[in-house]
């Protein structure tokens, strides 16, 4: 990029790793770095201008100071880990290192070994901010954990599928996506291994080594999948991003069943057919309203988990010209092939503003921050995500429900029903709970 990031999207690699660790029940984090590294991640609760991702829980940190940079910070780390283990009941301690610790070369591995030799469950993963953007931190952490954990047998009675490439706390609606995909797999006789969220956890992390397949949904899922492929020979299936809509979802499960040699039974076929029918019926109901819309030049600005899939869905459904701008700075290796498809990357918010100006778009779909930038440039925004810090509550885009959500948001933005405006003007009494939220 050749210039400092101006209003970056997701903080640094450490922040991404923190979000990821925080989403695995049973994993407790100690950050080995200067105080600001962990603090900034937690404090910027409004998705503030400095870009650290908000919404993190409280995190223990070694609070390195000048002294530790000069003499090494391992003594602080030893103390902090000891204290953490004293109050920790079960679970695992994960030591995440920030820039200073990695630059001065603290031998964190040796510290960890002291504890593991005493039977404690501690791992360390190098996650310094200089390794890359927040999503890179997600990939590094997950790959690092999978590379160190001893595998445990799966309890699933059906073929287990790891879901990789959805970054907790970073991708809007990450938990909803995991939930939808899990249900989708369940419907065709497979079991998803979610790792993150209430259904995930340490046991799920350990079970990943015994899965039948790793499903990679974004470039950020590649590193963890490769670790399992190398260590345990687990095959990898790379999906084309999230399956937005019933057709994409069906195509995905058919690929999965082919790959696993797990033919779909009558029940599975039935459930797929029902999904198709449900989506068709709903689409038909709004077809006329879609058909009268004048074609727009559309830009989808989102992370690589959602942007490509969303663009494909829109282009396929509406037949409008759609371009995608990736906002999560995917690894160089995956950018070159993407460039042919007209896909570009925005390194930060300033970059996105520039790309939007140049794109000639009149309609922009994306997460809350992309939509806000689009609105500020006078473009029509369609918000398809949660506000920063509320990613966990966001609704997903995958499957039939995801597609319906996209169309609803689109129609709301382009052809709002006139009654809605009237109702607002009539000042209907607002229920007290909403009033409180609005304050």
């Amino acid at each position, binding site marked *: 990029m050749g210039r400092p990031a101006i209003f970056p999207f997701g903080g640094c690699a450490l922040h991404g790793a923190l979000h990821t660790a925080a989403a695995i029940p049973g994993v407790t984090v100690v950050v080995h770095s200067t105080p600001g590294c962990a603090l900034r991640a937690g404090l910027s609760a409004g998705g503030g201008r400095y870009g650290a991702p908000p919404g993190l829980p409280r995190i223990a940190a070694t609070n390195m100071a*000048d*002294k*530790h*940079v*000069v*003499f*090494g910070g*391992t003594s602080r780390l030893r103390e902090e880990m000891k204290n953490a283990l004293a109050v920790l009941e079960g679970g695992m301690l994960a030591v995440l290192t920030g820039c200073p610790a990695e*630059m*001065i*070369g*603290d*031998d964190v591995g040796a510290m960890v070994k002291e504890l593991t030799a005493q039977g404690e469950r501690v791992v360390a993963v190098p996650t310094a901010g200089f390794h890359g953007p927040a999503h890179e931190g997600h990939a590094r952490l997950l790959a690092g954990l999978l590379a160190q954990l001893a595998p445990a047998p799966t309890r699933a009675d059906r073929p287990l599928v790891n879901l990789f490439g959805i970054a907790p706390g970073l991708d809007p609606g990450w938990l909803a996506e995991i939930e939808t995909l899990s249900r989708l797999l369940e419907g065709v006789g497979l079991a998803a291994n979610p790792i993150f969220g209430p259904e995930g956890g340490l046991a799920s992390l350990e079970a990943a080594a015994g899965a039948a397949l790793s499903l990679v949904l974004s470039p950020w899922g590649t590193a963890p999948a490769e670790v399992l492929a190398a260590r345990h020979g687990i095959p990898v299936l790379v999906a084309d991003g999230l399956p937005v809509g019933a057709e994409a979802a069906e195509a995905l499960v058919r690929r999965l069943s082919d790959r696993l040699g797990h033919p779909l039974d009558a029940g599975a076929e039935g459930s797929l057919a029902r999904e198709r029918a449900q989506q068709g019926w709903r689409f038909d109901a709004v077809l006329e309203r879609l058909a009268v819309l004048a074609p727009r030049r559309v830009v989808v600005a989102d992370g690589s988990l959602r942007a490509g899939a969303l663009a494909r869905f829109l282009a396929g459904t509406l037949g409008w010209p759609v371009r995608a701008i990736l906002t999560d700075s995917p690894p160089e290796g995956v950018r070159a092939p993407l460039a042919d498809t007209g896909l570009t990357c925005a390194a930060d918010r300033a970059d996105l503003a520039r790309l939007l100006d140049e794109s000639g778009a009149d309609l922009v779909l994306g997460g809350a921050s992309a939509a806000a930038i689009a609105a500020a440039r006078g473009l029509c925004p369609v918000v398809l995500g949660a506000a920063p810090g509320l990613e966990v509550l966001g609704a997903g885009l995958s499957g039939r429900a995801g597609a319906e959500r996209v169309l609803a948001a689109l129609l709301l933005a382009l052809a709002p029903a006139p009654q809605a405006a009237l109702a607002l003007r009539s000042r209907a009494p607002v229920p007290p709970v909403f009033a409180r939220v609005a304050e």
Partner: protein
Amino acid sequence: MSIQTPRHIAIYGKGGIGKSTTTSNIAAALAEAGHRVIQVGCDPKSDSTTILRGGAELPTVLDSLRDRARKPKLEDISAVGFWGVLCIEAGGPVPGVGCAGRGISAAVDLLEELRVFETFAPDYVLYDVLGDVVCGGFAVPIRDGIADRAFVVTSSDFMAIFAANNLFKAIDKYAPSGGARLGGIIANSLQLDHARGLIDDFAHRTGTEVVGYVPRSVDVAQAELYGQTVIEAAPYSDQAEIYRKLARRVTGDLETRLPKPLNGPDLKDWARDWGDRIFGAERAAAARSA
């Protein structure tokens, strides 16, 4: 003589090249001439001032910073050596742990905090710095105008020249923003015939000047065995005179300049040329004696 503000002089050199010996002898010569001198060793090896102090132990600044909650006092981190030279060793972290460069910054910060330069009121402060300039911390003495002039000690050894060239790069980088300028090259341990010509040529190529030639001498080795400078151990020797002259030169009025460091390929070509010449000369000598 006592001048108003002390003059800060940084002396760089690759490890093992004799920069501490040279710096200490310069310090001793200045002290002997009646100046108040501080020598600050900025080498994690922390043996810069040993021969000024008869080889006695001196806790380093970083050692004192390491374990103590309270700030160390000047007495804790300094010793008075030959002719009253105030000796200070910055020290460094345990090898492989922590950041030696940041350590030097921290040590220099502490000296300023303790107002050492005001209270001791030296005429000269000499910084003896490990000179490969491995990271920003080692550039501290020549950065931000801490030292106003820098010298580099080199032998005719290629690695020492390489380190000198690196220092030139650092000076070039920092001088425009108020960093030190180059006083010149100190040619040390000259022994072989070609050595002087080689260093002269390097100075010429980089637009710099050799301010002193110090031949290899048994006096130096002998004095060091006693834990002394040549000025102390053999005050009437030729070698002592050489150091006195060098001391006058580095503290005297001399034109400082911005060196023109050689880039990587140029430096390699230059070294190869010299290698061929020396090798050719040696072969001819061998043929003659055969």
